[in-house]
């Protein structure tokens, strides 16, 4: 009998600290599979965020660096400029990429840095206790919007992918999801494309992954993926944006 599916080489064989059913685990594995398939393990440098994925570098078996909250794309810019032969990517949550790091994100994209960003949109701040994120849905209850997000006081879900797609420096933007096996396969194809773009020197590529945070949605993992599919995709439609 042949093994037709197993742990990719770039994913260390250790348990993760993520909650049961957390989308970070799927995204970590997809990146590892792509790194293995493109045979770039000796060339890749990941930049980990602040957020639940803060110790992503413990899980990936390739070179990584840590950035201060929101500054991953500034750090990645520096790495890529001194090591242009390296394949550099950032891995960032919605709090990291869209809230505190919004300026760094927009300017790196606008400069057309030849980088890859994997953006985990789980509609909350996971690490700090489920507070509202810029991507929290209207009426979604979080620790800081106990009655649901109200546009009058908290504004609207921020569609950073659509916003970035407007910039001339941006080459590729796609929104995917990991709510079902078929979507996970599509997410992997997008991540692979975003790395191939960098290898070919095409410029800034971003893949937004709609991802479940069962803990702060207050749902079982099986209900959380349904919520991602049925509620999140209404506000954040899937597909290639640029």
């Amino acid at each position, binding site marked *: 009998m*042949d093994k037709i599916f197993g742990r990719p080489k770039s994913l260390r064989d250790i*348990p993760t600290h993520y909650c*049961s059913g*957390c989308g970070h685990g799927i995204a970590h*594995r997809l990146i590892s599979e792509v790194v293995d398939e493109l045979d770039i393990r000796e060339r890749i440098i990941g930049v980990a965020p602040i957020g639940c994925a803060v110790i992503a570098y413990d899980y990936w078996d390739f070179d990584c660096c840590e950035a201060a909250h929101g500054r991953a794309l500034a750090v990645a810019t520096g790495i890529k400029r001194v090591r242009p032969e390296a394949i550099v990517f950032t891995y960032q949550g919605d709090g990291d990429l869209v809230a505190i790091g919004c300026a760094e994100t927009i300017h790196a994209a606008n400069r057309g840095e030849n980088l890859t960003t994997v953006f985990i949109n789980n509609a909350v701040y996971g690490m700090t206790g489920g507070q509202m994120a810029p991507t929290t849905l209207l009426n979604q209850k979080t620790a800081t919007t106990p009655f649901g997000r109200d546009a009058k006081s908290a504004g609207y879900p921020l569609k950073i992918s659509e916003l970035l797609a407007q910039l001339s420096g941006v080459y590729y933007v796609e929104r995917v999801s990991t709510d079902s096996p078929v979507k996970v396969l599509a997410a992997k194809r997008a991540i692979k494309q975003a790395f191939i773009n960098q290898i070919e020197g095409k410029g800034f590529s971003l893949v937004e992954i709609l991802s479940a945070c069962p803990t702060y949605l207050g749902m079982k*993992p*099986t209900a959380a993926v349904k919520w991602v599919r049925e509620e999140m995709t209404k506000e954040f439609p899937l597909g290639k944006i640029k």
Partner: protein
Amino acid sequence: MPKITIDKERCKGCQLCILYCPKGQIRPDKNLNKKGIQPVVFLGGDCSGCKFCAIICPDAAIEVYK
């Protein structure tokens, strides 16, 4: 016949594999693992080797053989 293996100690019991197995070949285990989590077990019957369970597993706890 294709089959899967589940690493019980790695499994966090999210049951996403159960939700997506088209053949109904995965069930919650009777016993808890060392962390006190209820993992899942493969029933060992009619598995198509579709890999859906392994593809959705957030903890890379499933291997598929054909």
